[in-house]
């Protein structure tokens, strides 16, 4: 069941342009699946009239905590990233549908680009809990984009690309040598649209099942306003409600 929850910011880690926010709620949290997202109220400023959709980066049900990884893009995310411990942050959650759970034994590749790595953390964690150890392929422009790398590495074999070669292989995620060396049953992608399209193309060439998590502009986040639509084989569908995760076969890419 979806809820509107006042969280308190209880922990914060700054990564320059991004920040990791640990939010605590008084009451028990509803079920949340990896790939689902939340809608955050920023404040009463005129340029943050609407809520901001942010992926669930991690959940600690026992302690009533969720963690968000927020990159500063504009006024809203800047405001969020500069919240201070003790601040109250109003959140609607959980929204959308998460990643499809693989079968045991399936080889999974989780591909993340930029801030798109955010939902993959919780996903990889849950996969580990289910006894599936995913492979991770994370890309960024430069070394400092690869946030929490050590933590990701604990959740599976992790490959890295950077556009400037400052860490891992130089180039885009689609150029990484792992594509030649290993094969996968399922590929899950979150990142900038061009990168997701490139991975989707690669996956389709290899005839591998592939899911992407879209970040269309949203107003309601509830499937009510029809603002966030993506063009699919079934016509315009709401990313917030039927997604944000889509099998690439469904998309008209």
């Amino acid at each position: 069941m979806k809820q509107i929850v006042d969280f308190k910011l209880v922990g914060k880690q700054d990564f320059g342009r991004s920040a990791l926010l640990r939010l605590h709620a008084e009451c028990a949290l509803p079920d949340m699946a990896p790939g689902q997202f939340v809608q955050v109220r920023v404040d009463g400023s005129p340029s943050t009239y609407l809520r901001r959709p942010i992926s669930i980066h991690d959940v600690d049900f026992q302690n009533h905590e969720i963690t968000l990884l927020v990159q500063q893009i504009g006024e809203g995310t800047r405001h969020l990233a500069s919240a201070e411990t003790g601040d109250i942050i109003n959140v609607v959650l959980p929204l959308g549908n998460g990643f499809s759970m693989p079968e045991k034994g399936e080889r999974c590749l989780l591909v993340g680009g930029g801030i798109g790595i955010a939902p993959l953390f919780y996903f990889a964690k849950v996969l580990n809990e289910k006894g599936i150890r995913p492979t991770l392929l994370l890309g960024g422009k430069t070394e400092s984009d690869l946030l929490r790398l050590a933590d990701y590495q604990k959740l599976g074999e992790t490959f890295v690309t950077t556009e400037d070669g400052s860490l891992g292989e130089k180039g885009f995620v689609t150029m990484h040598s792992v594509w030649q060396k290993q094969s996968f049953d399922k590929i899950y992608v979150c990142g900038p649209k061009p990168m997701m399209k490139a991975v989707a193309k690669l996956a389709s060439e290899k005839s591998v099942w592939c899911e992407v998590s879209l970040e269309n502009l949203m107003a309601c986040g509830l499937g009510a306003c029809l603002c966030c639509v993506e063009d699919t084989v079934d016509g315009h569908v709401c990313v917030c409600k039927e997604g944000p995760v889509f099998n690439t076969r469904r998309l008209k890419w």
Partner: protein
Amino acid sequence: MTIDLGRGLVLRNPVMTASGTFGYGEEYTDFVDLAQLGGIIVKGTTLHPREGNPYPRMAETPSGMLNCVGLQNKGVQYFIDTIYPRIKDFDTNVLLNLSGSCLEDYVKGAEMVDALDKIPAIELNVSCPNVKQGGMAFGVTTTGISQVVSEVRKVYHKHLMVKLSPNVTNIAEIALAAEADGADSVSLINTLMGMAIDAEQRKPKLSVITGGLSGACVKPVALRMVWQVAKAVKIPVVGLGGISNAIDAVEFMLAGASAIEIGTANFIDPAVSAKVVWGINEYCERHGFAQVAELTGALL
């Protein structure tokens, strides 16, 4: 708190949710007990299915937003077959917002909806600025509105609410035309036509360049129009546009509205509609109004 809008449309309280902002109600049941609302007005529906406009369809603006959804919907028949059975037993008034691109579509659609027992009223959308041959053509001239209202009136026997466009020189004149041709009530405002540009990309932010402005920013314009229309017509006026809390709602009633609708504010606080119901009650108690209906036009 009962509000009687006439011809069988009786609301438990003056608060409804605006078309296109509350889905089919189902999207909000986790947040609001629909039985607490005066009514919900479902998505804009057209006779034939519409894919709507391409993405992107929205842009945030100072204290508001633009949208150009373009009436995406699966058509009246789909509504009747698939959605109506799911929502007809909601313990509140379920109104259908009917749109069209030509006179025949409006009439055919209204005829089909007339047969639905549990839909006590149509909100006739003659004011959607987001579709090319959209209803707005009907909504901006007195002859246009007369035509569509009188034709629909012939086939539709329940409460006919006509939703007016604010993109006109003289909204009272349009309202009077709707009244004269058989509207049981008018609701206003639909969105103001606006535009947003991404200066860095040098491109419009919306796929079809212009869209409809809604949210707190439009409230002063909406309030003025409700006041003008309420002075002009005798049928009930339903006020909306930027209502974000109970005090906003009270302002619309004082300006002459018999009931109100909440739109964009649902996106910001999905539970806002129920809060507005409580808040109006609280205001009435504090100011000594025995009936909510007494608020209507009660400017000093």
